[in-house]
């Protein structure tokens, strides 16, 4: 029958539309609380799907591959990195430059400089997986946008260590903390 398919289609759209708002009303106070959510909506749940980004964030998965950070050994207080340069050699886009310091600290080799170039990084994760000391990790940092390229997007040793201390105080990656289920 002419037009029946269109009516059926419109009813599906309308049902979805009403569903969203009715489902959302049911969760009214909870919905607008700003806290990291693991997942906005499951498959069977009803309600608005939108994450109100700047106020409300998705908690990153432990394996999320963001910008690199250098992990600090919490017992020794220095970085695990020994400056071997394996990450530099395995990087497909040549985004990492490491030099090794002359002197040892605490009987351990340490890097003298570490430059991580986010201009070219393709976030493939090879450097982290190849690291023999498990000294590299991916930080769940999202707000990395800048007004200029070049030096503004190159992280040096101190910045990377700071990222590591901020996001991985335990000094391990993948990050242990599982996000709470919504």
């Amino acid at each position, binding site marked *: 029958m002419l037009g029946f398919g269109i009516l*059926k289609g419109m009813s599906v759209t309308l049902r979805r539309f009403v569903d969203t708002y009715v489902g959302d009303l049911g969760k009214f106070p909870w919905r607008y609380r700003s806290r990291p959510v693991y*997942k906005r909506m499951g*498959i069977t749940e009803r309600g608005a799907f939108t994450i109100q980004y700047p106020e409300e964030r998705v908690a990153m*998965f432990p*394996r999320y591959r963001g910008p690199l950070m250098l992990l600090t050994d919490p017992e020794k207080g220095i970085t695990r990195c020994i400056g071997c340069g394996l990450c530099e050699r*395995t990087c497909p886009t040549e985004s990492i430059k490491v030099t090794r310091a002359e002197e040892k600290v605490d009987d351990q080799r340490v890097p003298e400089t570490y430059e991580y170039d986010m201009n070219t990084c393709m976030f*493939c994760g090879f450097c982290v997986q190849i690291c023999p000391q498990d000294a590299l990790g991916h930080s769940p940092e999202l707000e990395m946008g800048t007004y200029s390229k070049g030096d503004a997007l190159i992280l040096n040793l101190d910045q990377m260590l700071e990222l590591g201390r901020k996001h991985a105080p335990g000094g391990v990656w993948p990050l242990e903390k599982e996000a709470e289920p919504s």
Partner: protein
Amino acid sequence: MTELKTETITINMGPQHPSTHGVFRLILTLDGETVVDVEPVVGYLHRNHEKIGEKNNWIQNTPFTDRLDYISPMSNEFAYVLAVEKLAEIEPPERAKYIRIIMVELNRIVNHMIAVGFLLNELGCFFTPMFYCLRWRELVVDLYEMTAGSRMMPNYFWIGGVSADLPEKFLPECKEFVDAVPGFIDELERLLTDNEILQMRCRNVGVLPPDVAVEYGCTGPLLRASGVPYDIRKAEPYSIYDRFDFDIAAGTVGDVLDRYLVRIAEMRQSAKIVEQALRDLPEGETATPKKRKFRPPEGDVYHRIEAPKGELGFYLVSDGSENPYRYKIRAPSFVNLQSLPYMCRGHKIADVVIIIGSIDITMGEVDR
């Protein structure tokens, strides 16, 4: 009644056009509204994959394959990894094989959802069906991110396995997703399939007869919609596809509507395969130890898989060193696109847009 003779006009469409799926240009020769000839111009996204692939070593190439067909990254990795494994005679562990099938079939569901969404988008149903479909894509990319760490470029398959085992939450969530897929497809069909507008605009538009489709080398849903039940998963089972029970969907007419219906049917079949793979998933190792470099023996090898868009093949030549000597990608979109002029001739200019949408191309793969 005598027919009016008009002069043909030539118009340019693209490279920046909302309906060309990226940067793709068409030179249309029109007689009034009717298309006389179409000349596709590609190459606006030629990113030198093959040259860069020769510069990288064998292991470093996997993340680059993600960026070929960026809607279905897992399939690209799968094809490359299988080709290298065939060359170097590496056998991945059983569990890794099953994980790969799960990932690739989830990818097929997503790809077809996006293809259907874009097709509807180009029919003028601006973005409402697309939003439904992309909402479901979000659920799958969440699974990818949970497992591999990245939404679009997972770099998850390795030569000789997968990079990490599945996380704990993956199995229940994947099960929940796969169980919900048929319901969603039913809803999509209620919304679309009987719709007169869809039927009238798609029926008998862009017909590709089976013999022409084979001549042009079309593969994937495009070929199957023409009535040739040729699926590499059945014709030449690779990996462990011979262990799963699924059907090949095929059309009869070979028009745009048939391609839509084939995609809908393939989504159901993919969900079925994922279900079986989840059921049979064995315990055990997932990867051989990670190396930074490796040297496969000399030789050349061609391996092809049934990617969501068609036959994706890698032709690799090794000279025994740590870099590929030749790294050639046989991209399905590139070959399928050749049939566009044939399908468009004689139709109206508005139909060109939906015919492009029904081929389901990704420019990253066409131009490489």
